């Protein structure tokens, strides 16, 4: 029992600083986001009035993330937690929230902010899904942040959440949000023009993708979706599937396949061998890692467009 007493004393010492932390938090709310893209948007919209941190660094695949204790510790300090939503983080975020044990940060709580709840989701399954269909998102495609205007609309959620936990900040972010919205519309228009002027779009260019994560992107940038390399979402395709998609692309003169950097490299290499095409392997999240060249969202989107144009030119030259 002596050990129990020692542990209880240790706990008391640990718990005491909570009140101090709470006072600090009351001055400047801490917004913790799951992904770097949400963190970038939150910083742009909220400015210096809040502190923003992201759990992920931009190198992870947000579908497959471990319940790391450092995530729990960060969420435990937060006043607001923002998620991409549409079940993208369903495999890990609920456990992180439960372990952080902050009542207001649980889904439905005043500090919980779900960007995806403002998105009119694409690719919603028309029939009931189960695991035989692969890793299908029942609420629809969660990769909306690759479409600047849709992402900007979703990002409005963070203002609502911060104002709920800090009513004294109500109305302080409207101007910044309007500017943010305008900037995102400008970014989309500018990148669209860039794509149009490149050889990639002689009308509506068609592309295939490794995983269905460019649906919103395609809609925003007037690209036509041709197909998906994965046979079932979340499962690496078989050699037969690679050959099938390759043949279909050749027959239909589709020369562009886009994959996120988190896609399995071995499968992508195999597809390149079979098809003779170069795959556009692009980043899909802002990276906060040191020496990253995609530290901001506009730079991320520019990088994607640059990569698509470069690969498209290369593949067009190959098939000519």
């Amino acid at each position, binding site marked *: 029992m002596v*050990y129990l007493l020692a*542990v209880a004393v240790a*706990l008391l010492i640990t718990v005491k600083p909570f009140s101090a932390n709470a006072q600090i938090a009351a001055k400047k709310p801490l917004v913790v986001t799951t992904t770097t893209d949400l963190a970038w948007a939150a910083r742009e919209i909220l400015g210096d009035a809040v502190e923003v941190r992201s759990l992920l660094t931009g190198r992870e695949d947000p579908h497959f993330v471990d319940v790391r204790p450092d995530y729990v510790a960060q969420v435990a300090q937060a006043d607001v937690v923002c998620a991409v939503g549409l079940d993208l983080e369903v*495999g890990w975020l609920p456990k992180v929230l439960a*372990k952080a*044990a902050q009542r207001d940060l649980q889904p439905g709580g005043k500090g919980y902010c779900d960007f995806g709840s403002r998105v009119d989701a694409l690719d919603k399954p028309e029939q009931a899904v189960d695991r035989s269909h692969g890793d299908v998102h029942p609420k629809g495609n969660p990769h909306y942040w690759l479409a600047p205007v849709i992402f900007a609309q979703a990002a409005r959620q963070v203002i609502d959440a911060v104002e709920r936990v800090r009513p004294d900040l109500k109305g302080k972010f409207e101007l910044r949000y309007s500017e943010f919205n305008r900037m995102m519309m400008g970014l989309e228009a500018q990148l669209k023009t860039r794509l149009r002027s490149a050889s990639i779009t002689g009308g509506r260019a068609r592309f295939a993708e490794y995983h269905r994560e460019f649906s919103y992107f395609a809609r925003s940038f007037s690209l036509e979706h041709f197909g998906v390399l994965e046979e079932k979402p*979340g499962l690496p395709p078989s050699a037969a599937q690679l050959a099938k998609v390759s043949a279909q692309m050749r027959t239909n003169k589709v020369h562009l396949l886009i994959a996120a950097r988190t896609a399995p490299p071995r499968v992508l290499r195999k597809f390149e061998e079979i098809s003779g095409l170069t795959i556009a392997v692009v980043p899909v999240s802002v990276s906060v890692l040191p020496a990253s060249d995609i530290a901001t969202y506009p730079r991320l989107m520019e990088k994607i467009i640059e990569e698509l144009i470069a690969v498209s030119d290369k593949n067009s030259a190959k098939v000519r």
Partner: protein
Amino acid sequence: MRSERASAFALSCVVLFFAPLFTALADTGGLKTFVAVDLVGEAFVRSKVVSPREVEVRGVEVYFFAPVDPLFDASVGIAAHPENGVSLFELHEATLSSSKVIPHTQMRIGKGFLNIGKLNRIHQHDWPFIDTPEVQRSFFDDEGVNDLLLEVTVNTPTFVPFEATVGIAKGWVYGHAHNAGKRPQVPTHYSRMQTFFDLPRGGGLQVAGNYLGRTASDSVKTQLLGLDLTAKWREGRTVPLLLQSEVWVRRVKAPQVDRETALGMYVFPQMNLIEMLDFGIRFDQFSVLTTKDALGKSIDNSTYRIVPTLTHKPSEFSTFRIAYAWDLKRRGDATPNFTNSSLLAQMTYVIGAHPSHEF
């Protein structure tokens, strides 16, 4: 024994009868269910003492969990294990928990596995290898210590993650028992202090110190001290490198008998070969440190086990494993001798809504 079997049989009938009903109600009360099946086979290639071949369903676990109200969640877990050739369901878990009452604090009350060590906190079907390390078998009765408990876990909102658990359990029995036991002089009490370090290239290292103590009704005092460690690197669906290890020391003091000290550990490094295929090798060691020969001189009686394991994981809900285990024993200063070797195979699958795993 007969009444026990009858009650277990009755519980099995209740489970099978009501499971579809619970599932049907899931949409209205937020009730989620999952069933995990763990099929294990072992064929002894060289053994003098055990039967040569055996394949069995090691466990079928049925879990129900849901919020009870805005503050509390509840879970009920019923598991069937083969005992004396028959698999009957028994209650594994019936807890009420909350992470919404006190900030940064999770509370759990009811029957469940103690939040201590690494393997003791994970269902057997989720272990990264097939068989049970000797340290787990000897100190935690194979699957783990399960009891009626009251447990509090605090996560500190600090720069360095820190999680502290303290708990007290009824302690009338220890481990897997099918009797009521006797009132202990000191009930089972335990604590776990865990921290975490960021590692380069997206890795993480979780380290925890553990303590468990109990004094049984017959004045036998047991103390366990342990360290568990998990290092993991993840890239998308795959885990390129995993390192899991536990080291435990147990001291047992019975009246009029010298104190017995035993040391046990396992180390399991695993690497990803290709997308769904992992290879790991486990090294176990177990020794009773206080064993003496007729002259009173300490004698080494260590046992070792080496288990290379190949894991195929087509999804997070199914696993296929094959392993080969070598058992070695050392006596005195002699070189360790091989005693048994066996081929192991495992298949696990989960249907339903399995909650997220710990790190």
